[in-house]
């Protein structure tokens, strides 16, 4: 087969960091070629170079055997390269067709769009690849999975032969992922070449023809899918053996720690119900996982449980004591810890340094505060202690949190929250965007916390994570808890259906 893309000795440097170090690999025409690596391995940088967003410091890019220079995305598009970003670049208030054609619209005359042609062309393209997208709906009305297809359509419309898909499954449900894979295979059958960027090994093994593994900016190896396995890939990625382990089950389950009793809430902005009749209990020594597609009330549930979301109805109890409507500070003080879903916005004050962040939430409590005075000695000794205990990689405790890697930022948050040993730990998307090693760390800490006889509520978009850690699993859909089951009694597939609003009756036995 012919080689459509070849990278030769590509180097990209950011200051002292070599983001891409003599990257070399070839991609065969009409294949699905995956690039895997931990966060910071240089995958995205490499793709940005290919798409013309960055310029390589050295090295060559060959398209169909010819050396090319890609100065900006328009060069890339001209060369038949299309990029489907992690974050979609669509205009919500426009229709699908308008988004697809944007910048290249068919016109009746210089002043008027040919709307019919616009919609027809989009429909034809959509049908050709089995995308099943209605050209006339507004983008704001369609789901994340469909939006992604619109992005694919955009690239196809611009005659892309080489499609870059950067972490395309990050926001998708299992079903949507399956659909996407079907589409990808259809594109391959049609002669398109796919560059699939991911760090999810399972998906890589499912979809790829060949895999290029990157670590620390270098290409470690390029292998045929048939010659490798998840474990082998993981070893190549991390550079050591990793245990894709299963967590040991809960040992001793004690009494109820947190009780949510018929919680309901409406959004302040739209006055739409965001939580309705949510009831559950979390017991000491167990992890209750809450599975669900993003935006089904998880954010509001977390906020409600720490006193930030106004409840229209319902009560919250902690160890039998009602704590509904307590101010946030007191909720935290009576024993609720939280690992917020967005570490940069909610979890950290990124322009505070490490030691200031490690006492956030405790700024009015002993030993950090005495008679209103801030005790910097206590703050720094606490920080030194946690940095060592949780192996937070930071040059010093006066380093700004902004400058830490994502994994270490999360470690700061986890260390801070775990250290106060709250009876109830709420972990919202605790490993989002983390690489294998950091994910491992967070999982281990949550399990340890559980085994200390504390309760953990885990909200995650990753079913794998839910299945790995939870003792029991609840599914949240449109602000409602539609099922709570023991982990042993369910499967990823069942949960996936429930997350989409199905019920157990719909699941074929």
């Amino acid at each position, binding site marked *: 087969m012919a080689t459509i893309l070849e990278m030769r000795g590509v180097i990209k440097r950011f200051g002292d*960091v070599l*983001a891409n170090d003599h990257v070399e690999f070839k991609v065969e025409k009409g294949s699905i070629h995956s690039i895997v690596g931990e966060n910071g391995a240089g995958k995205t940088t490499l793709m940005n170079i290919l798409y013309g967003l960055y310029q390589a410091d050295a090295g060559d890019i060959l398209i169909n055997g010819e050396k090319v220079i890609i100065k900006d995305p328009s060069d890339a598009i001209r060369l038949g390269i299309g990029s489907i970003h992690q974050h979609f670049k669509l205009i919500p208030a426009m229709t699908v067709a308008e988004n697809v054609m944007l910048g290249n619209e068919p016109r009746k005359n210089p002043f008027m769009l040919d709307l019919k042609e616009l919609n027809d062309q989009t429909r034809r393209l959509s049908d050709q690849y089995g995308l099943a997208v209605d050209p006339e709906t507004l983008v704001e009305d369609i789901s994340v999975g469909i939006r992604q297809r619109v992005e694919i359509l955009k690239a196809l419309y611009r005659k892309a032969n080489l499609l870059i898909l950067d972490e395309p499954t990050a926001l998708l449900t299992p079903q949507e992922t399956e659909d996407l894979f079907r589409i990808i295979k259809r594109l391959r059958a049609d002669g398109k070449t796919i560059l699939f960027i991911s760090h999810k090994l399972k998906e890589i093994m499912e979809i790829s023809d060949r895999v290029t593994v990157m670590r620390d900016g270098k290409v470690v190896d390029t292998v045929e899918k048939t010659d490798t396995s998840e474990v082998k890939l993981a070893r190549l990625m991390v550079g050591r053996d990793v245990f894709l382990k299963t967590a040991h089950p809960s040992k001793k389950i004690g009494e109820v720690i947190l009780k949510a009793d018929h919680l309901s809430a409406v959004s302040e902005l739209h006055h739409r119900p965001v939580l309705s009749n949510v009831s559950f209990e979390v017991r000491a020594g167990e992890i209750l996982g809450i599975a669900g597609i993003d935006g089904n009330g998880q954010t509001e549930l977390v906020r409600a449980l720490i006193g930030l979301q106004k409840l229209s109805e319902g009560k919250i109890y902690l160890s039998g004591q009602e704590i509904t409507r307590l101010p946030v500070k007191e909720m935290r003080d009576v024993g609720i810890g939280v690992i917020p879903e967005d570490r940069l*916005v909610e979890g950290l004050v990124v322009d505070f340094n490490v030691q200031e962040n490690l006492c956030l939430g405790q700024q009015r409590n002993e030993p950090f505060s005495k008679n209103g005075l*801030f005790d910097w000695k206590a703050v720094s000794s606490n920080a030194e202690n946690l940095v060592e205990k949780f192996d937070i990689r930071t040059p010093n405790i006066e380093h700004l949190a902004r400058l830490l890697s994502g994994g270490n930022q999360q470690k700061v948050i986890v260390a801070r929250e775990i250290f106060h040993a709250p009876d109830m730990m709420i972990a919202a998307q605790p490993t989002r965007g983390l690489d294998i090693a950091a994910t491992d760390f967070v999982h281990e800490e949550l399990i340890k916390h559980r085994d200390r006889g504390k309760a953990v509520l885990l909200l995650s978009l990753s079913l794998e994570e839910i299945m790995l850690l939870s003792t029991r699993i609840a599914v949240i859909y449109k602000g409602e808890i539609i099922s709570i089951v023991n982990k042993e009694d369910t499967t990823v597939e069942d949960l996936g259906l429930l997350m989409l609003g199905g019920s157990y009756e719909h699941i074929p036995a």
Partner: protein
Amino acid sequence: MEKARKFLEKNEAIATSVLAVILAFIMVAILLLSTGRNPIQAFGYFIRGAFGTVYNFADTVSRVIPLLIAAIAFIIGAKCSVFNVGIEGQLLLGALTSAVIGFGLDLPKAIHLPLMLLAGALAGGLYALIPAWLKVYRKVNEILSTIMLNYPAFFFTHYIVLNVTPLEGVIPATPFIKDTAKFVNIFPGTRLHAGVIVTILVVILANFLLKKTSLGYEMRAVGLNQEAARFHGIPVEKRMMLAFFLSGCLAGLAGAVEVAGVHYRYLDQFSPGYGYDSITVAMVGLMNPFGAIFSATLFGALKTGIVDMAVFAEIPRQLITLINGIVVLFVSAKSLIRSRFLEVVKGKKTDALEKETA
């Protein structure tokens, strides 16, 4: 060389501020050269005028006092996400209120002066509660509301002085305050008064509040990330109200100190824009109370030194306004200067786009 680089890198914020000021003076030098004047000589006059004699120096310090207190007012707000551009108005109200207490009451010195300062501060603080409430509970952008609220303050004080308080002579002003309400003059023959002690106290206390108290920690957390602050139990709304109030109090105090130390009465339109200058002073001072000492000194010197420069180097007044403007311009362009500066020092671009996003 390597050492110098490391030092500059570590202190890039300070270096950038200094660089902005130096660039401004270079621009001024070019301007002077182009009009056929000798910039070295002119700057010589400038420095002599600002710091050359004990008297000049004392005068410069007296100019620094209101600027510095007002700058601290801005800093206290900004640290907690409150951008109080209404310092000018709060300062005027503080000055008028203190003047009224100063001439209207007969009290022993131990009470009269402190009471007068307190009243001035309170007037500024209470006036600031209007935009504070609008911002915190009605989501009104405080930059707009505070700018606009400067006008009512300006015209209100103007009206009071012309129509309510007794006029003595032709100058629109309140009567003189009692001796018991005056700051002692430290350097007879200059305007330097004991208000400088109050100023130093304000700087130290502001720094203490921000760095050494839990309240200050919370205010800074609110200033840097409201959402995180809220998540970790900090009452964001209350902290912002407080910051606004404190900022207004300090603005009012700046006005009161001017009355008690320099004018001894409320002189209509006495402020040459201290409130507005204070924002630049705070920014050049890197939003740090101690940094503000240096930048306030620079801007105070601009006010006194420029007089000598104008007289002896025969530079027209208009050019002097321009000098002021150029300094402000360069200081505002600081972030631009900063990124260029870092490029030179570190040999790399700091464009946000360039950061690894993988």
